[in-house]
């Protein structure tokens, strides 16, 4: 476990040593700020903090997905390219410690980025808004979990190839597909009750967001996200084991 911590530390160092994290944070915060503006304008008089934050956290997830996908593509692909993976895998560190360490570093960066969005809340509270904390916290938890799934899948994509470009394409495309599975097949589709439609909509990241932003997270939804994270990280560990031979 200590090794995981060391790897997390180093990855954070790498994040802040490269411009990509700053750039992506700036983009994400710009989009998120724009979204906040939109929802704020829709409720100009009520100053109902919760309505605004609910709308915001329910829709910002997609940008979060893209943001996390891009910052994670580097994680393993680059180490394979430069040969540092050989250093990690010949150190007394287990494969899963490497993968989990990288995952945690991404989560820390994600938390930091989300912390910036608290600024909206602070603004509204200063200007007399009243917040109901339960839904807000659960909304943030939802975002964190979505980000976690994207991070886990980004690391998986990154372990598949030495090329960051390929990893980026895989990571982003799959995240987009995962996101839109629900809207595509459930809300518009006439075959709502078909088994595959239900399955796809369950697999969709987007269909689990709502309960969080409403303030009543379903255990099923938490379970869904956590399962996805563990699944992707587990597959990554297996891929690392397989790729050793190359």
């Amino acid at each position, binding site marked *: 476990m*200590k*090794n995981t911590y*060391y*790897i997390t*530390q*180093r990855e954070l*160092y*790498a994040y802040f*040593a*490269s411009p990509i994290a700053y750039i992506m944070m700036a983009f994400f915060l710009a989009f998120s700020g724009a979204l906040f503006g939109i929802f704020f304008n829709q409720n100009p008089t009520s100053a109902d903090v919760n309505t605004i934050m609910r709308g915001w956290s329910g829709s910002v997830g997609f940008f979060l997905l893209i943001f996390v996908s891009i910052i994670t593509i580097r994680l393993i692909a680059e180490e394979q390219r*430069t*040969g*540092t*993976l*050989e*250093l*990690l*895998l*010949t*150190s*007394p*560190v*287990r494969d899963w410690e490497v993968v989990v360490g990288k995952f945690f570093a991404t989560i820390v960066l994600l938390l930091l980025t989300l912390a910036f969005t608290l600024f909206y809340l602070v603004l509204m509270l200063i200007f007399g808004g009243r917040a109901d904390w339960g839904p807000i916290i659960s909304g943030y938890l939802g975002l964190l979990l979505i980000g976690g799934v994207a991070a886990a899948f980004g690391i998986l994509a990154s372990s598949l190839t030495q090329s960051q470009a390929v990893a980026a394409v895989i990571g982003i495309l799959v995240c987009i597909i995962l996101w839109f599975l629900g809207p595509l097949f459930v809300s518009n589709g006439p075959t709502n009750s078909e088994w595959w439609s239900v399955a796809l909509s369950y697999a969709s990241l987007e269909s689990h967001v709502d309960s969080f932003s409403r303030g009543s997270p379903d255990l099923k939804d938490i379970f869904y996200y956590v399962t996805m994270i563990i699944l992707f990280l587990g597959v990554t560990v297996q891929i690392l084991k397989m790729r*050793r*031979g190359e």
Partner: protein
Amino acid sequence: MIEAEKLTKYFGDRAAVQDLSFEVKKGEIVGLLGPNGAGKTTTMRMLTGYLPIDGGRAVVAGYDVVEKPVEVRKRLGYLPETVPLYTEMPVRAYLDFTAKIRGVPSKGRNRRIEEVMELCRLADVSEKVIGKLSRGYKQRVGLAQAIIHNPQVIILDEPTVGLDPRQIIEIRKVIRDLAGNHSMILSTHILPEVSALCDRVVIVNRGRVLVEDTLANLERQGANSERLRLEVRGPQQEIHDFLARWPDVVQVEIPTNAASASIDSQGNLAPAVNPDEEAYEVALDGESQGRFNLKVTPNTDIREALASAIIQQGWGLREIGLVVPSLEEIFIRLITEDLAHLEEEENQDAEDLEDVEGDELTAPVSARSASYDDELDEPDGDVAAVVNNEAELNSQEVVRREGSNPMNARQRVYPVSKTPDQAKRKAAPSFLTASPKDRSSKPAAETQTEILPASEGDQNSTDTESERE
């Protein structure tokens, strides 16, 4: 400290390493030698647990590599061929990280980092970002990470590759400072490095151990075919006959043009004399200085007697000396013999096309030139002459010369790299590693490609090299 027992590794259905066994004792530095694609890196990666082992067993520092990988890695320092550096980190931070993941306890960790930086002469760049360091410094940082946890076993994969001579010397100094406390395996194809550093040598080719012996033994072994080098000024024909009549002289050779450049035991290139000029000189006046190589019956030393006899004849004796075969020559002979052996086997299998005459050393070369003559309808006279000439020459000389003398006409036959450094690294193995299987199955195509101009041929040899790796 390290025991490899019948290690085997397959890539696809090709065995990269097969039944490779050797041992490294405590405090010993062992050189793992071999041409490109011989299986050195693969072997090392198996020992470090990076590559899964397909067959056999490896025990490092008392632990089985497969069963107790983490225990092994705690006691093992490894510098891969591509130095694993996080280029965005400063040296000290990088070493701190590697110390942590190698389990150096936090108490004394900083002191250890200082020590290692001192040892690897990194103290003056400790706060610099690794990406901005020179190649030599980077290599030393790589070495520092391998020894940071004071491991019992150190494995270094080509630690001096790509460095300039001064940097090579520095790295060797560092390695020598480490000797004694650690068992070390060091792979290289720079032979002087082995003489400079190693107690014992393991020569591998085609994934198998050819020889495992001490350096001294190897050199003694190589010395049994004794040769003398002479330079005598006077009438050449007379001198030749005189030498040939001398008892104990088995054979007199007049070294042809290309004997002019060589690599001495320190790995320095001796300057090359323009071959054509020299030949011209000899042809014009019979009195010019001449070089002779004598093959002498083993275990005789006729130097004094011969020297005084030559002086009595009134000729100018400029030089007389023993030709001591360098490690390089021994190495090349072993590899060549191995390849010749392989070729023989395959020739027999394929009901060979021509008799391979001559001793084992020249076998591959003569076989090739013979097939060239047979297969080509219109041989270009010039090239054909060169190739025929090849057959007479000892193949080890061919290799050395081709590497060291880019002006040589032979360049057309065996494309060579241009810089001395490249040449040094490539000289020995490049053409020897060209897959003999291809050669025997389609001799015409193969010989033709070898006679192509340098650029295309070079590409060809790189292709075969990468294929083997």
